[in-house]
């Protein structure tokens, strides 16, 4: 079984890669990619079902905070029911998005205003190395550079922050991007060579 799954993974990967370089394989690549799209959508459902099972078991075992799990299940069932019955783009179904999902997520995002500022203030208390100092100075400089005064941009800060963003931060970001790409390349090759088998299999 483990060999079979590895063979499937390697074969699919090789065919996809071949589609990049050999035009006759492009159709096969498209077919396989469309299959993968469907599977990815089904995998989303697996995650949702797993969430249901976890919180259902919490309710069944009457664990601590099981009441919150009950709320979660109620919300999930209601949203799923409405979404399945009315489709997500329906006006009533969009109430869930506009009235619950967006406000809740945006409010959570808004809480970061206090949390991030609090963490930035305390950073040098615990860790006062070069990287922390550079990090904090850059953050303060770019925050200042993002703001304006009633009469316009903040002199010097505006130019400095822009230079840092377009040059210094660009260099570091590019290094990170290249590093990420190298990591992704290595990981993909290990999967295609069968060295890594994150898909499991017995």
């Amino acid at each position, binding site marked *: 079984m483990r060999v079979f799954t590895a063979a499937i993974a390697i074969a699919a990967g090789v065919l996809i890669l071949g589609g990049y370089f050999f035009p006759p394989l492009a159709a096969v690549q498209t077919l396989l990619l469309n299959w993968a799209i469907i599977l990815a959508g089904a995998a989303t459902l697996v995650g949702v079902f797993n969430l249901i099972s976890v919180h259902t078991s919490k309710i069944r075992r009457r664990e601590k905070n099981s009441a919150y799990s009950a709320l979660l299940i109620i919300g999930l069932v209601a949203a799923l029911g409405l979404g399945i019955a009315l489709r*997500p783009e329906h006006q009533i179904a969009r109430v869930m998005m506009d009235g619950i999902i967006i406000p809740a997520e945006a409010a959570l995002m808004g809480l970061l205003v206090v949390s991030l500022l609090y963490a930035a203030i305390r950073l040098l208390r615990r860790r006062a190395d070069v990287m922390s100092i550079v990090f904090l100075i850059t953050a303060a400089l770019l925050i200042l550079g993002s703001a*304006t*005064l009633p009469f316009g*941009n903040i002199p010097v800060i505006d130019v400095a922050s822009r230079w840092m963003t377009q040059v210094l931060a660009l260099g570091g970001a590019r290094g990170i991007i290249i590093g990420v790409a190298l990591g992704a390349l290595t990981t993909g090759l290990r999967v295609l060579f069968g060295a890594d088998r994150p898909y499991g299999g017995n």
Partner: protein
Amino acid sequence: MADTVKCPVCGEDNSAGSEFCQYCQSRIQPLTGNLRGENAPITPGESPTKKSTADLEPILPQWLRDARSSARDATEGDLPQTPQQPQTSPRSAPQDLLAGLRSQSDDDEEETPDWLTNITGGAPSAKKPKEESSNVRWVELGGAKDSAPEPQTNKKDDLNDWMREASGLPQEPAKSEPADSPDWIRQLASDDTRAIFDDSANADNAASDSPQTTSDWLNSLGVSNNAAPVASSDTPDWQNLPSASAPSASADTPDWLKSLDAADSNAQNTSAPETPDWLNTLGATNSGSQNSFETPANTFADAPASSSDTPDWLKSLDAADSNAQNTSAPETPDWLKSLDATDSNAQNTSAAETPDWLNTLGAPSNVAPTASADTPDWLKGLGETPAAPIAEPTPAVDMPSWMSAESAPAAPVAQPQKENDSLGDVPSWLKSAAPQSSIFDDLPAAQPAPAESVENPDWLNTFKSLDPAKSAQVETPPAFESESSADALFTDMPDWLSNSIETPAPSSAPETTSAENELEVSQLPSWVQSMRPVDNGVAQIASAASGETPLEARGALAGLQGVLPAAPNYAPTSKPKAYSLKLQATDEQVSQAGLLEQILAAETSPVPIASFSTLRAWRGLRWSLAFIFFAITFAVLILGTQIFSLPVGIPLEVDGALQAVQSIPQGNPVLVAFDYEPARVAEMEAAAAPVFDQLSLHAPRLTFIATNENSAVLVERFMSTPLMAEHQNSGLQYLNLGYLPGGQMGIRAFAQNPRAAISYDVNFSRAWDSPQLQGVNSFSDFAAFILVTDSADSARAWLEQISSARGAMPVVVISSAQSAPMIQPYYASGQITGLVGGLQGGAIFEQNNNGRPGTARIYWDAYSIGMLIAAALILIGGLWNLFAGSRDRAAAREAK
């Protein structure tokens, strides 16, 4: 009475009532009933108690003295009989490693009792007994049933054949093989021997007439010259050890030998006012011998081959008489002089001068009581009664035959009590020598305080005071090693002797035990017990624990004790190598182990947390920050101020986006990908609104696609905003293809073949039939691609997968401010045409959007104030905490 009980396994003291040892959890109280007190059996490995009976020598009974004298008379007559005894290979060394194994090695030597061979040099040297408190008693393991005599059936025990022979039972075929039976036993069982008991006056004649049938060891006890000739192949070593030709005197002669010597030499200087008659007789028997002797130190070496099997101590005894002429009187010790005085009926022999060997001399004398005027009736009966009467109840098979031989005449079952009564004045040690199931069974009850009995000699009372605990700790030194150890010779005598002293069996024992078909411990000699299998040998473990002799726990010698003594010759000549229990580890390993230990300790040790006051202070900071931002934002938004100016100038990336949007031809298809979370709705809509406002001016055919589950709905939300609704009212149309799953796979599929990747829009209409996608067959057919995303990864995925399919299509990315720095390199590399990042980018774009105000303007004052406050707090708070942290760290270093 003992208050504590010593565990037989671990040797620790436990309370008297404990059933299990509190140290090793071994059972202390046996499951079966124990024989306790005087009935307690001697446990295997226990040795007779070493007692100093020198003080009691003068009060030896007359019959013993008669026996000695009769033995001396018979000495000369026994000598010619020596050739009649089959000779065996000489027993060379006393420290024979297999001395104790002879009885089990082959049939030729089975007849030799272990205890006899152990008494020889093969007996391992015993250690000094550990001092114990007087209130400690050793636990006797094994109940009476464990060693109860088996019924007299056809079961034949090779080890006991010689015993049955000695008992004179006619049905024993072994009796027809005199060579297989120890002579002294046959002699003990013979009528001639019993004649000794019958009449002390005839003892000498009996010994001379039939010297071969005379018990040699009794003769030797009587310092008889007959001891040596009885040596044979089956003769125990202790009978063969003394050589008749032991010629030379030596200063190494043991005291007890000297005492014998002195007895023969009739030393004149000692006086023994308390000397009993038997000592007088003893002295009389030696009256003919005028020269004392000294046993040479090299007795064993000089012993002839013919006597090699004779026990050393017997040889010594024998030599005492045979070499009497060779010894010199001046070397006679004082105590021999006392013996001499005893022979001369001197009345002033002091008890202190009595040799120690007499302590144990009483033990062998128990089994060889000489008939005299003091001879008890039962002993007389012993001589007169044939052995046959011990019939049914007598366990002749497992009980040593010699005991049966004695018990048969002495213990008629029909008259136990009567004979017991007639033995009221019999010394207890003699009663002990009697068979266990004989008339002395009720002796303990009859003599509650034997030591204080006026009828018993004092030295006999000392025997009564023996208890198993003390006897178990008595050393059993090799015989004849030195003068000092000479006294210990008789402590090495068979345990059954000492056992018989201690444990007279009840009179009803024969009947009961035979009924139960079991063997009592009290009737089983320790040497037999030592041969018992090890699985019943908790008692053997006890003896092993006593440190006397090694106990073989496995192999062919399992259950045997002392068969492989730690002979001095085999003792290690050098100090054994000491193996340290300390773990051998390198310094690095030790350091690493220490580090691991520290880590583990750190994991388990509580970590002090910041004080609550500190936490309250930081919580106050958080609340203060929240209050500030809530207050300012509320105030600015409620007031609706537009004090702060929008950003001045236009960055290159925003300018590139603006140029790209403005360059889109009228009515061309534009692909818009939404990929952001609902949390970023405000920022993304604020940034995207001016771009789409500008784009709408070019009447594009918008096609939306979402690579995020929620984004498909967010497209509808965005298009329903007032600005976009206004454009829709102006004729703007869009197509929502919905959610494109699969991340990079979906993007690649769409970039590779849009028609194959998506067939229907969100309303399940055929997407490619819609007017927005007219003329679009591939990804590059779109006039522009606008990516609205809050994720750098999403942007990277899109940019990576469309890189080969986009052609010259302009790509504009509208991102959140967070992901903008990571998307910036793609703009710098030319992979994207323009980048609008966050609210600031949207505000900049708005200023260049023909002056149409948008969402960014509404938020901008609050945004600028919030950013300024944040920057100020970060700088001020950061500096303050930098110094505070440095101060804390310095204080911590000083504290360390």
